[in-house]
């Protein structure tokens, strides 16, 4: 920690503020330096590796766009990209559609211990290893498994991957929706009902617009987590369903580091693009429910 150096020009108060700043910077420095190191290395190493074709561990290599051409034009790599986006979109849709009524019903449970127990049931799987949860689905969907008969052929194919991913991401989808439904102004639904709006209309014109920001937040989180999921698609896909995250790993094992770097950058680009897109959407959602007739209706 920095010792106070004599600075006669400063007033006592000014000196105190400088000192306070130094302390603050000293406190955040290690964590921030660590994060900046990682971010810098991501940009420099990934970009540097993706613009070469030979696998070397040297930091500088001849500039070459061949790897990018392969990542973006090879049919197999394009199929991987497409699978990643398709699985991401489907899982997001299914998870949010399932999570919304869960959040709605959870907030209407009267007995506190039932509500607490249900919260625990829904959120505690976050703490169980993804490998274990995926394995549970492998057992269920496998030959002789409880669901192996009904859902025959789901294991090691896309439906199985999607089912397990919905299970893994569900708690993350419920959380933002709970927050958003809890902030619903009291009485709006009753008011709509008193004015004669039938249930479906209340859902479409009152409930959904007022909780749009929660829906957007929930979808954003699930999509971001799903496109970067690795263990679940690897295990449930059994090599037949390949997403970007797996491809990065496989390319490293096959010593194709440049291609892995290009695909890692693609994955990062998708994650950041989704973040930006959904942030825009959520601003739009917010503006809508702050529109004049909504105003400060409380």
């Amino acid at each position: 920690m920095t010792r106070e150096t004599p600075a006669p020009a400063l007033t006592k108060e000014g000196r105190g503020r400088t000192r306070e700043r130094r302390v603050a910077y000293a406190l955040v420095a290690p964590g921030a330096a660590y994060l900046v190191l990682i971010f810098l290395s991501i940009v420099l190493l990934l970009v540097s590796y993706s613009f070469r074709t030979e696998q070397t561990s040297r930091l500088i290599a001849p500039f070459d766009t061949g790897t990018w051409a392969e990542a973006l034009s090879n049919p197999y790599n394009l199929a991987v990209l497409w699978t990643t986006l398709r699985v991401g979109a489907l899982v997001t849709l299914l998870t949010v559609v399932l999570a919304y009524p869960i959040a709605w019903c959870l907030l209407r449970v009267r007995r506190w211990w039932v509500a607490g127990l249900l919260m625990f049931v829904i959120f505690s799987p976050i703490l169980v290893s993804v490998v274990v949860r995926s394995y549970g689905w492998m057992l269920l969907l496998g030959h002789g498994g409880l669901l192996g008969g009904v859902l025959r052929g789901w294991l090691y194919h896309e439906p199985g991957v999607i089912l397990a991913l919905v299970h893994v991401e569900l708690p993350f989808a419920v959380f933002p929706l709970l927050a958003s439904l809890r902030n619903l102004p009291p009485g709006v639904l009753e008011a709509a009902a008193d004015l004669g709006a039938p249930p479906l209309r209340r859902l479409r014109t009152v409930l959904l617009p007022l909780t749009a920001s929660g829906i957007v937040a929930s979808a954003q989180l699930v999509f971001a987590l799903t496109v970067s999921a690795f263990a679940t698609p690897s295990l449930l896909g059994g090599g037949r369903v390949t997403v970007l995250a797996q491809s990065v790993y496989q390319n490293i094992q096959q010593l194709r580091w440049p291609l892995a770097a290009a695909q890692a950058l693609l994955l990062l680009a998708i994650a950041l693009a989704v973040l930006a897109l959904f942030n825009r959407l959520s601003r739009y959602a917010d503006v809508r429910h702050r529109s004049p007739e909504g105003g400060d209706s409380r």
Partner: protein
Amino acid sequence: MTPAGRRAAAALRVLFLALVAVFVLLPLAVVVVSSFSVDETGGGWPSGFTLRWFQRALDHEPFRVGLLYSLEVAGVATVISLVFGTMAAYAIARHRFPGRELLRSVFVMPLSLPRVVAGFCLFVLYASLFPAAYGTVGGIAFAHCLLLMPFVVAVVGAALAGLDPALEEAARDLGSSAGRAFWHVTLPQIRWALLAAGIFAFITSFDEVDTSVFLMPADTTTLPVAMFLRLEQQQDPTVTAMSSILIAGSLLLAAAAAVAARRTGGALGGVGATAGARTTGPEGSAEGEPTP
């Protein structure tokens, strides 16, 4: 709505939530039941019960080594991220300085970084600059801090924001040093938040696969990676038994974390805030049970 209609709606809601609970718990339940089964292929109802898979799982070399490895990594990563994360959270919560808002967002940024990307990147970093870090406890713990730090900063930051700074100022005015005031006044008030953050960080690190799998050779790995690599080859009852042990451990710690979170009131909100940080920003921390 008529009273009868209301009762029917309530019954429907209960039924729906019960089905959801079954969906959520089924994959875990099937693992636990299968781990006691005498059958080699799990997934169905067992034809008899045995404990031998647990014995075999704990005798299986990669699992035994992996369990210790994972505990060491999780311990080191948790301590490092708690110390540096708390320091940063404290500075951001209590001091006004230029760049504060920027730093706040820097600390949640890792959440938008896909873990596989972080893993690949650190792999290349180690391969080209620090070959000695590859496959060591320190190297993997260093990588895990990236995933744990945002969480610690969010939970501890939320707890600090709920405190009255006047208490610490009073201690300072009565002549104690900044360090002593923090240690004796602030730290005891955030101890439950630290415990909740620590438990969650420990489990996150212990269970980590996506980043870790890049950072160690396939023959000596942490436990979840060992299980993952084995499952890629074959399903067998030792993995099932090991999974049951992990489920039991996770649920015990989850219960402990829930208790710790109740004590702080806001810490569970912190969990959600971290989960939602990349989306909702500061308003996410408004979630969580209000302290009575």
